[in-house]
């Protein structure tokens, strides 16, 4: 299951759903809003998604994880909207018979979601400045123009 939500992510509640009696291992990942990034102090974040495509691509990733690794279930929820320091932006949970598959699948899901799902992040800094993360690759290209 892959989901985009505008509501706070309740990691504890999500974790409670991951269990089945044939599952020996549950691995979870929480990505939280940090108070700094690349040396800059961050006040808050805003996430935006191309929702229809994000949900399709996310579901594909979950399906891939289930095929590649010996797991029982994988689940990922990504929050969008304005988030404060410490808020959970993304949660991934995997349950499996054995631990190594659970670790591998969980890391696979988070890696793939970060690189393939159309979600964007804007950081807000002191002094009312803000910045779309990874936008620099675009402006670098623009400046090369001259």
């Amino acid at each position, binding site marked *: 299951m892959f989901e985009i939500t505008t509501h706070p992510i309740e990691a504890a509640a999500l974790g409670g759903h991951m269990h089945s009696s044939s599952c020996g291992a549950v691995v979870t990942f929480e990505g939280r809003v940090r108070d700094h990034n690349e040396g800059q102090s961050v006040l808050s974040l805003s996430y935006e998604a191309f929702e229809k495509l994000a949900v399709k691509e996310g579901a594909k990733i979950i399906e891939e994880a289930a095929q590649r690794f010996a797991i029982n279930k994988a689940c990922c929820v990504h929050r969008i909207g304005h988030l404060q320091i410490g808020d959970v932006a993304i949660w991934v949970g995997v349950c499996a018979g054995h631990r190594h598959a659970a670790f591998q699948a969980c890391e696979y899901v988070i890696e793939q979601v970060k690189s393939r799902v159309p*979600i964007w992040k804007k950081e807000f800094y002191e002094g009312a400045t803000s910045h779309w993360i990874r936008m620099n690759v675009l402006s670098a*290209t623009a400046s090369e123009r001259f």
Partner: protein
Amino acid sequence: MKEITIHYYASLRDLRGCAQETLSTEAESALQLFDELQRDQKLPSNRSHLKLAINDEFQAWETSLRSGDRVAFLPPFAGG
């Protein structure tokens, strides 16, 4: 002429100054459409860091366009 709606997200929306626009074009492919739109400098000069979606599916830049298509040029993802 084809009627195409183009959606912009995140940094591209800021750069373009709008979230979507609809226009008539003779562009055969998404690639030609991008080049046409890029001329006014309100899109990055280089599309190597962008991805493309047509009607809510990822597509290759060479995909031909049909009237009514919804196109989105997508800046680098930064979820998680």
